[in-house]
């Protein structure tokens, strides 16, 4: 691998659970992210998947420096960005941008589309240098018309709003774009349009994506490498096809097998792993292997010794005492 564009090393973020009105005190801690490490190479799409509460969205915000780390380091292009503040942090914004999940909540309803897309230019003193032209260019890039600049976000459909969000993220020519569930709030036909747009933009500008999603089928479509998270920890990292065809961790296997396939014949023939119970509370995660309470392979050792995230076969680390591949999604591709 070449020099990574972004390296995350042992990221930790715990959120305090506050109680009390006058004197607020922490009564517990949510272990949102608990020792997460990964590297993203320039030009690749690195996926982070997991269910709600696994910490994937917190990872996105940590990387964007929207929330502060409790522990760990972030390195971008060899520069430590873990604690940059003020002007240095503003400079960092030129390099890293984010696309949000909810196209209804991520655009200020009181600003016009032109103001929204142009805001990064104003903030970074680039407006005088052909600002309006750049806004038109950006709108055109994401498939909107120049006249749309005068409208307000509520006049657009979900898919179009997501395009506005993408235009804003691209305004500063970033290298890394964090995509936080960019299509999960959209309808199927809009989803395909946005995924194709993201891919097109990546090819055109050599963008690197950190792609956060709960939907493994979307991840399979867009990502080059994937990390699977469970309760604040990475349980498996692999190249896309290695992950989908030879998943090693029981959780990944269950997750893949739970995604329905839009094909009745295959869908009804599948051997599905139905996990028992719910995801435990991240306030009080299970000891040792965090997945052992729901795991179909769990043994005594899983409750006692935490499995390390270590290489199982070539470049395919998984954190399980009993990691081994399972048959692919569908037993015999028809």
């Amino acid at each position: 691998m070449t020099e990574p564009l972004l390296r995350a090393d042992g990221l930790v973020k715990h959120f305090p659970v506050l109680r009390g009105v006058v004197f607020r005190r922490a009564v517990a801690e949510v272990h949102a992210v608990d020792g997460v490490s990964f590297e993203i190479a320039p030009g690749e799409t690195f996926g982070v998947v997991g269910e709600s509460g696994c910490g994937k969205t917190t990872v996105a915000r940590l990387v964007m420096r929207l929330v502060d780390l409790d522990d760990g380091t972030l390195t971008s292009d060899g520069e430590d960005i873990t604690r940059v503040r003020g002007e240095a942090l503003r400079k960092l914004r030129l390099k890293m941008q984010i696309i949000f999940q909810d196209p209804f909540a991520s655009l200020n309803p009181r600003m016009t589309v032109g103001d929204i897309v142009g805001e990064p230019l104003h903030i970074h003193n680039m407006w005088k240098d052909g600002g309006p032209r750049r806004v038109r260019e950006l709108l055109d890039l994401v498939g909107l018309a120049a006249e749309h600049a005068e409208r307000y976000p509520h006049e657009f459909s979900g898919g179009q709003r997501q395009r506005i969000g993408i235009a804003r993220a691209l305004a500063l020519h970033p290298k890394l774009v964090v995509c936080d569930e960019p299509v999960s709030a959209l309808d199927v036909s809009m989803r395909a349009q946005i995924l194709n747009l993201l891919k097109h933009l990546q090819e055109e500008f050599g963008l690197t994506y950190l792609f956060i999603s709960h939907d493994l089928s979307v991840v399979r479509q867009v990502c080059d490498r994937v990390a699977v998270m469970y309760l604040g920890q990475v349980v498996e990292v692999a190249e896309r096809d290695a992950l989908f065809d030879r998943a090693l961790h029981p959780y990944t296997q269950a997750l893949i097998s739970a995604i329905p396939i839009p094909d009745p014949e295959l869908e009804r023939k599948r051997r599905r792993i139905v996990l028992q119970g719910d995801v435990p509370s991240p306030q009080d995660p299970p000891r040792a292997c965090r997945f052992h309470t729901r795991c179909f392979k769990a043994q005594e050792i899983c409750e006692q010794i935490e499995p390390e995230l270590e290489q199982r076969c070539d470049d395919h680390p998984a954190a399980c005492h009993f990691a081994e591949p399972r048959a692919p999604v569908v037993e015999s591709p028809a």
Partner: protein
Amino acid sequence: MTDVTYFDPERDSARPVIAVEDLVAEFRTEAGIVRAVDGVSFDIAQKEVFAVVGESGCGKSTVALSVLGLLPQPAGRIAGGKVLFRGEDLVSASPARLRQVRGDRIAMIFQDPLSALNPTIRVGEQIAEVFRAHREIEPKVAWEQAVELLSIVGIPRALARAKDYPHQFSGGMRQRVMIAMAIALRPALLIADEPTTALDVTIQAQILEVLLDVRERFDMAILLITHDLGVVAGTADRVMVMYAGKKVEEAPALDLYRTPKHPYTWGLLGSTTRVDRPRTGSLPQIPGSPPSLLVPPPACRFAPRCPRVQPICRTDYPELRKVDVGQVAACHFAQDPGWGPAPEEVPA
């Protein structure tokens, strides 16, 4: 409650549980009248899982609400058509009769179970309440039944958990509680409106399993409203696809996926991401966005986005055409031999 129509195998097994005929549902808005559902017909047989698929705004949820007579008031109303429940028209039924049928013979579960449950009442009480509303029954018996229902839908330690409040349950468990409430009186039809959309995938798999299990156990028909073609594939017997208030295609599940006859159907299938397929270039996509229902396209509503559009599509409305046993499609060319998606419209 004496005159509730119960299922009589001899009389009823041949005819559909519910038959919707030419349903028209309208909403008054500031900008004018909107036909959210425009002339939709379908029927659901005993024990059948019938899925209605489409994107947001296509009218699928309005269909579900119309069947129950629950359109938001005063903006919404049923402007035409019939909803025949075992032959009895619910559109013209009295409000009292509708209340009787609702919850008893036809029950519904929603996407967000938390807002459908009362946060201040123990879940066991809430289920028992369903019995007391519709049946004369001892409180103690009702409670016992509630506990039993909770264990049927797979809630562990049902006896203890019946005393808990809704917020003490996780999302998946709450949806199970909703299902328990809905099936309490053994309804003939269960309407499930996006029952798993708010849930994680591993939980979704559990809930779908519960639904299919109670269908089997109680011989219920299920009207499943969803946008997810994957969920449909695993659960539905027959599928209706809606677009901009119209029914565009209906077919047995296998045929719909194997030989879709409406370009919108295959557009949806093509643009759905799949976990079992390696990436092959870009996804096929449907261009544009759905039309305004205030000023819908004059003829075929899909024409502005259709890859196969012809002049006739912009002038004549395509009626539903029969293309195979049980399969109809509202496309002028549906009956043409060889009509179907081109190879590039379906990813390999």
